[in-house]
């Protein structure tokens, strides 16, 4: 998917509004008393349009995987809504939830633990049909599974093999085939290639792009590798401590980042070009990410930000197009949650 997607003209397929997930911290054994909460996701909003890939990046602990689980309703949201075709997923249960989940599938990070070692590949990929028998009639299932194996580039004769007989890349293909089984519209990929070797990563990424074209899928692609996210995404959201710091088209985020965190994150990525090491500017952040159980007041990034002022501690910056860029015609006009948003090219691409 390299052509930019016009995002204004279409209806989003998924609308996320003010999503919040707090995990309670309790004390005591018998009478558990809540003493606080880990604010894993704290008010995240975004849209996903049909046929596009939305990348979500951030460091560990920023809440990106929790967002993925909330979108599937695998975790119950504390607050906020996830609208899929006008229906709020977070309020659904039972039969209605099952029907929605048919259209939203997930591919997990670790292909070694997300496949049951005691089931054959055929059983793993065919299991979704047991839950949703209306998709494939009983007699047809074996044929469907073999078709799916073929689609993801595995030999259909491997249907009776077990996961341990496959390499990491092949296992991830099995995970993708299982995700495709029910013809979903949306696939949520949580770090789908980070466990794979470099030469195998490219194979899986290319496969995912091919499948997106073939089945007109929408992807939410969660990863910490900013280079891969840029390659596959049409739009990118940057998360920090449970909040969206900046969101925009790939050109906006990578060539015209305005949030200091995005700038620091991009400047920290090593670029495979030794010529660049002398003249690339590095922003080295001090310290670590604060605990999500006790996030800083105001802007959450202020404790590590070189631009932080008193205002940042008192007033939380909202995710919006900064006023000074509102009239701009370049991609710099995108949503950024910073009081002092400023354009800075840190990648050296523009």
């Amino acid at each position, binding site marked *: 998917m390299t052509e930019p997607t016009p995002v204004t003209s279409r209806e989003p397929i998924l609308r996320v509004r003010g999503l919040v997930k707090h995990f309670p911290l309790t004390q005591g054994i018998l009478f558990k008393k809540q003493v606080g909460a880990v604010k894993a996701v704290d008010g995240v909003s975004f849209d996903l349009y049909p046929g596009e890939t939305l990348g979500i990046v951030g460091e560990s602990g920023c809440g990106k995987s929790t967002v993925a689980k909330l979108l599937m309703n695998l975790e119950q949201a504390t607050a906020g809504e996830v609208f899929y075709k006008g229906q709020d997923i977070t309020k659904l249960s039972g039969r209605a939830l099952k029907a929605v989940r048919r259209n939203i599938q997930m591919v997990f990070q670790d292909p070694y633990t997300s496949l049951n070692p005691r089931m054959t590949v055929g059983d793993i990929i065919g299991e979704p049909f047991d839950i949703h028998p209306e998709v494939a009639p009983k007699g047809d299932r074996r044929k469907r599974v073999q078709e799916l194996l073929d689609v993801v580039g595995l030999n259909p004769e491997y249907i009776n093999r077990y996961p341990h007989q496959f390499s990491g890349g092949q296992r991830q293909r099995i995970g993708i085939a299982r995700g495709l089984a029910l013809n979903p519209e949306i696939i949520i990929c949580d770090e789908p290639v980070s466990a794979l070797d470099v030469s195998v990563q490219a194979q899986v990424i*290319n496969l995912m792009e091919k499948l997106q074209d073939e089945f007109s899928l929408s992807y939410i692609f969660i990863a910490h590798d900013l280079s891969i996210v840029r390659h596959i995404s049409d739009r990118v959201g940057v998360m920090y401590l449970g909040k969206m710091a900046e969101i925009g088209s790939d050109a906006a985020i990578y060539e015209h980042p305005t949030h200091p965190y995005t700038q620091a994150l991009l400047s920290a990525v*090593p670029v495979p070009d030794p010529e660049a090491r002398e003249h690339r500017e590095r922003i080295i952040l001090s310290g670590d990410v604060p605990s999500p159980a006790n996030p800083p007041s105001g802007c959450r990034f202020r404790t590590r930000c070189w631009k932080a002022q008193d205002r940042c501690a008192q007033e939380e910056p909202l995710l919006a197009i900064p006023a000074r860029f509102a009239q701009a015609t370049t991609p710099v006009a995108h949503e950024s949650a910073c009081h002092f948003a400023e354009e800075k090219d840190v990648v050296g691409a523009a």
Partner: protein
Amino acid sequence: MTVIDDVSNVPAPDAALAPLLEVRDLHVEFHTRDGIAKAVNGVNYSVSAGETLAVLGESGSGKSVSAQAVMGILDMPPARIPKGEIFFQGRDMLKMSGEERRKIRGRKIAMIFQDALSSLNPVLSVGYQLGEMYRVHQGLSRKAAKAKSIELMDRVRIPAARERVNDYPHQFSGGMRQRIMIAMALALEPELIIADEPTTALDVTVQAQVMELLAELQREYNMGLILITHDLGVVADVADKIAVMYAGRIVEDAPVHDIYARPAHPYTKGLLQSIPRLDQKGQELYAIKGLPPNLTRIPAGCAFNPRCPMAQDICRTDVPPLHPVGTARGSACHFWKETLGD
């Protein structure tokens, strides 16, 4: 820095200095139920003081095993070193007694491991574990060792070292734990550090901090550094020279600038083309077809031939030697000229 004279033809950055470490024709194999897995099949490399050598490879390429052989921490059996020499300051460590090697390990050559959480003992405070280096190797008292530990934690920039010296590993963040690992490696001011994927488990912003710290300390102490990694980006940032490994062999070996600009081996070339770039929005990624070989059944001839777009008959029969490419470079490909050329 003492360097004992050694006859060597490998050019060091300072031609007057012999390399600190020189590995010659190293072989390592593992005896397994499925046969003999040949993890390292004739590896040569050298590092001088103040120099950074990056050993690049995918999982199973033998990059970690060769480093463990240098460090002398391979489990033997199942591992075996049937052949090879590892010269450290001119002496072959493989011929030394266990006692002699122990004197080098930690004191002269130290190692930083990938996963700091599982490399540190969870039931002992970090101060105790750092102090152990001084108590065991230098016979310092507990009190003196603790003072030294605090100094060390300061040097790797752990904030409030005095208060945190009695904390346990789980109380530190990933980046801080990796700093403690670096502190532990530095404790006895070694001459060579082997860092095995030191930043793989860390986030990018923390990775940048840790790599910068490591580079700075290396300059300060003029240490040799062997950086084992699979990340082509990290290598480009810090390395002076690179050895690319595939199926237990070095397939290409070159100064860092040459390899990125003009790779001389199809595997290196494929790797460089298969990674997405941050500064470019690419088209479809180039993918090296197939999978890395099973080490118990390495293909005959060039181990890369089943995956190579340039493979000819000769590649399936003859193992390519490391052809010299220019002065300080080598490529183990029969068709290195063609690979360089196009």
